[in-house]
């Protein structure tokens, strides 16, 4: 049987993000996938040597358009850890609330994309209809829709008053109700089950070997969630990682569905316990030292290595995005799959290539 190479991307309807795969195909089976990324590498890690470390929050937040807030938060936490800045508890709780809101909107976005990827367009529309409500909460409380711009070193830039808390909680009721309707389809519908069940199975050991993170790792039965490290307000809010043991695309979908409800519960608890007080402390001096900060993004664990030598600019700023860690696993999943399953398998790791091209 002759081998054919089919190019997939960087422009492809299922994934409007610049990743290119050379699929080596024998008949309808994919034998091997060779990736190339780096089409839009922005060199943001180098930019840190020119920008003031306080202003760099704006850049850190723009690494990704979907998990933007958690990028900004992780950067702030890393610098705060170096400088030993005590972040006020209220700021920590607000960061948690906004981080969880961004997780809900990212997961709903992914559910929509997944539905679109398997040709279920009406479900895609419904997922994004609910996501719009989440974006409205975010816009009302932080001012931005996807770039929140509300985190700064030493705290947060905006407070939530009692009215905003009340509005958010009542809107969450509607979001929870609507999400339940949609996730019912994702979890119980036969056509979804048939399309995703058993496709792209990643065993527990493989997931660990390939260094997977986030929902991909948890769907294979590994209960790892960086929120258990207890950063921000997670030390007071219990987070039990959502896991599945099947390790297929359906399990990854189910993990993300359940995480939406987990996030809604966490937001309720955080807003319930929201401590009074200051929202930011003044930052003086320059950072000196280094730290590796890890937080849990919607797509998995993000790693920030920050090294500073006492100047206004940091010496090294390195971001390991979750997609970067999940790419080797995606290549493994593509080996031996059907050509028709490629879009599902590419989407199943929730790739955010723009994040990866920081």
């Amino acid at each position, binding site marked *: 049987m002759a081998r054919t190479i089919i190019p997939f991307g960087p422009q492809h309807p299922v994934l409007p993000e610049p990743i290119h795969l050379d699929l080596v195909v024998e008949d309808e089976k994919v034998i091997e996938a060779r990736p190339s990324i780096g089409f839009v590498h922005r060199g943001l890690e180098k930019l840190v040597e020119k920008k003031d470390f306080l202003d760099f929050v704006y850049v850190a937040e723009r690494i990704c358009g979907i998990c933007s807030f958690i990028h900004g938060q992780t950067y702030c936490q890393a610098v705060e850890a170096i400088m030993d800045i005590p972040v006020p508890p209220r700021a920590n709780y607000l960061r948690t609330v906004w981080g969880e809101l961004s997780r809900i909107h990212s997961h709903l976005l992914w559910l929509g994309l997944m539905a679109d990827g398997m040709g279920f367009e009406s479900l895609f529309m419904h997922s994004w209809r609910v996501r719009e409500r989440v974006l409205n909460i975010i816009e009302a409380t932080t*001012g931005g829709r996807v770039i929140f711009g509300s985190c700064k070193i030493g705290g947060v830039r905006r407070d939530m008053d009692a009215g905003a808390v009340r509005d958010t909680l009542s809107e969450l009721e509607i979001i929870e109700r609507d999400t339940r309707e949609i996730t019912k389809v994702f979890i119980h519908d036969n056509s979804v089950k048939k399309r995703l069940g058993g496709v792209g199975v990643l065993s527990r050991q493989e997931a660990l070997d390939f260094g997977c993170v986030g929902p991909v790792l948890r769907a294979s039965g590994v209960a790892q969630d960086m929120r258990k490290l207890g950063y921000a307000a997670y030390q007071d809010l219990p987070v039990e990682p959502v896991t599945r043991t099947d390790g297929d695309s359906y399990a990854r979908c189910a993990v993300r569905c359940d995480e939406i409800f987990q996030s809604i519960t966490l937001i309720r608890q955080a807003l319930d316990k929201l401590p009074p007080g200051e929202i930011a402390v003044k930052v003086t001096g320059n950072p000196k030292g280094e730290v590796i900060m890890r937080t849990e993004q919607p797509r998995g664990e993000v790693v920030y290595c920050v090294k500073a030598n006492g100047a206004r600019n940091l010496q090294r700023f390195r971001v390991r995005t979750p997609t970067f860690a999940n790419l080797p696993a995606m290549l493994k999943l593509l080996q031996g799959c059907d050509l028709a399953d490629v879009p599902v398998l590419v989407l199943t790791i929730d790739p955010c290539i723009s994040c990866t091209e920081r």
Partner: protein
Amino acid sequence: MPYFEMSFLALKWALRKPPTTQYPFEARKAIAGSRGQLIFTQDNCVYCTVCAKKCPTAALKVDRAQKKFVLDRLRCISCGCCVEICPKNSLALSTDHGSPTTSRDSEIYRGS
């Protein structure tokens, strides 16, 4: 009911008003608290250049001697940094996001 989950959802929303708006004819309602366009009030400005120094995207250029304030709207990311530090409160963010434009011209304000 594994077969009809989607049918229920589709039927329910087929009988409702659409959640979308007919955009060019009906504008989106502004959300209170949204960070929209930057509004400059010239009367209080003393041209101290603090905002221009702090602007993360260099969208503001202020000349103290000529009493000139230049705002490049296409560079502005509405972060609100200048609003926070303006000593005279002459900058503010509206909830309106502005209309699309076809020109790249900056807005120039000259004081007397």
